[in-house]
């Protein structure tokens, strides 16, 4: 129900073009893919397996059991510092809100995932690069609190360039706030699973995203602390092939599994069912 409403809000209002593009092109191999097939394949290229970025609504639809998602995220951002660079932050916020139909860079709510009651939070890279400001931090803290209160698991899908610069120190403080809120889950033995998608960097990786009980990463996703551009500037040389990609992180022991998006729900459900003390033994569910 809630999902249908979200989709409707996002659909572009009927413009001049009558026939929308039926085809899309893979960013990696250039293959022409029928759009419907591309979407059904969860934005993974059927030819080369490249994982493209995915709209937050489709993430929710992919992970939540049908008809169970109830949106809870609704806080609105402020401009506490009156930040102006080449454009006022307040104007940037309006533009992002217009483009995404969302108040800030996170979509979340309660749902069931493979029958396990959960709080599901999905970051939206399309909104200010998924950056974490006060709203994202507060929604994550409230999500963890709600999960603890209601005995739900916490599942966070991360996609973020890092902290929201225009909220400066206040955005930095969200790293501490989100990390601390996870303690409520610890106290109640509730599972927390994070999924790191392309890209997950900066203050998001370096806070709640890195502290899950089980960490999944999507194939090829860029994941790290500093961005590759900054590192290139620091060391003044080219970066090794595959550096900071999901597979690199698996090799270095930072994530539990690199999982193809088409198997992701199954594996997330497995992890949740294994961990959640309220879920009985049920092999192969």
């Amino acid at each position, binding site marked *: 129900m809630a999902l249908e409403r979200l989709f409707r809000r996002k659909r572009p209002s009927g413009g001049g073009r009558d026939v929308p593009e039926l085809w899309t092109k893979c960013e990696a191999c250039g293959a022409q893919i029928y759009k419907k097939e591309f979407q059904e394949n969860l934005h993974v290229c059927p030819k080369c397996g490249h994982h493209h970025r995915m709209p937050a609504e489709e993430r929710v639809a992919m992970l939540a059991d049908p008809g169970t998602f109830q949106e809870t995220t609704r806080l609105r951002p402020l401009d506490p510092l009156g930040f102006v660079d080449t454009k006022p932050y307040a104007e940037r916020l309006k533009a992002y809100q217009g483009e995404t139909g969302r108040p800030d860079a996170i979509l979340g709510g309660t749902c069931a995932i493979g029958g396990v009651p959960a709080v599901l939070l999905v970051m939206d890279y399309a909104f200010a690069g998924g950056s974490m400001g006060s709203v994202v931090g507060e929604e994550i803290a409230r999500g963890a609190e709600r999960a603890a209160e209601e005995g739900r698991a916490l599942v966070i899908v991360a996609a973020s360039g890092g902290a929201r*610069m225009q909220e400066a*120190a206040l955005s*930095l403080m969200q790293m501490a*706030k989100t990390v*601390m809120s996870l303690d409520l889950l610890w106290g109640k033995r509730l599972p927390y699973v994070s999924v790191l998608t392309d890209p997950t960097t900066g203050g998001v*990786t370096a806070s709640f995203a*890195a502290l899950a009980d089980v960490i999944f990463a999507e194939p090829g996703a860029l994941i790290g602390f500093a961005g590759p551009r900054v590192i290139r500037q*620091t060391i003044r040389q080219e970066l090794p092939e595959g550096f900071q990609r999901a597979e690199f992180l698996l090799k270095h022991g930072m994530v539990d599994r690199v999982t193809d998006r088409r198997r992701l729900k199954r594996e997330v459900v497995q992890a949740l069912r294994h961990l959640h003390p309220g879920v009985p033994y049920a092999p192969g569910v």
Partner: protein
Amino acid sequence: MPLEFEKPILELERRIQELKETAKATGVDLQAEIRLLEERLAQLKKETYGNLTPWQRVQLARAQGRPTTLDVLEKAFQDFLELHGDRAFADDPAIVGGLAYLEGEKVVVVGHQKGRDTKENLQRNFGMPHPEGYRKAMRLMDLADRFGYPFLTFVDTPGAYPGVSAEERGQAWVIAQSIQRMSRLRVPAVTVILGEGGSGGALAIAVANRVLILENAWYSVISPESCAAILWRDAKEAPKAAEALKLTAKDLLAQKVVDAVIPEPEGGAHKDPDRAIQNLKEALLKTLEELKGLSPEALYQDRYRRFRRLGAYAEP
């Protein structure tokens, strides 16, 4: 090296000195001229140091001769015993820590360490830690908890090291873990931002019950140069970014990101380090006194609440 905005002051000081020497050498009475220039100097200092821009403060925060963590540990504390290593990979010279007494009370201390000259700065990686530095910090947090001693940290870093070696060893992961470990302390934790508080690399050891800041230090999510490079596409716009980031002690106090500001001598802590360290020590003692009497659980809850309320958003 004099800071650009201080040059008129230094020039005037030099002229006064010259006049004094001339008077001494020639016996000519220059008292009136000297007094006049000294009045002008006092006025100029008041105007300059009383109206520092955020960017000027950032420069003071980086000034050579500004007290580093080791300076503070040597002068404000007694019997500092440095402990090394993360018990896993290496000892990171960009983070120092160990055991000390503060006015007779046992404490565990950790801080970023910049070099006091170029050579030491290279050895200390300009105060930019690798994962092993944060693991050393976490080891010392364990120690503080185990013995119930207050845990004190000193922040002075441009940021955690952004390089291949740090990424390979999980920079993001250890910063997250260090934030978590520090937030879970059951002892009083106090942080002092000494100079630069650069992003997650600073916060990793700044999840304290009380966060104090020296008057000219800065603390933010990104350095003004990097912010300018991204938002203005030109690092030279750093003064504008410093303004926009609201990163000065006074701004941070208004945002409740810090709890108190420690005054510095006129012209910055490097002009009179002993005085600055004395001010710091008094502030630390006062803050520890405030936290005395809180139970281990109350200390944890106090820290949780302190960070839980930070942020600005609107309910729908």
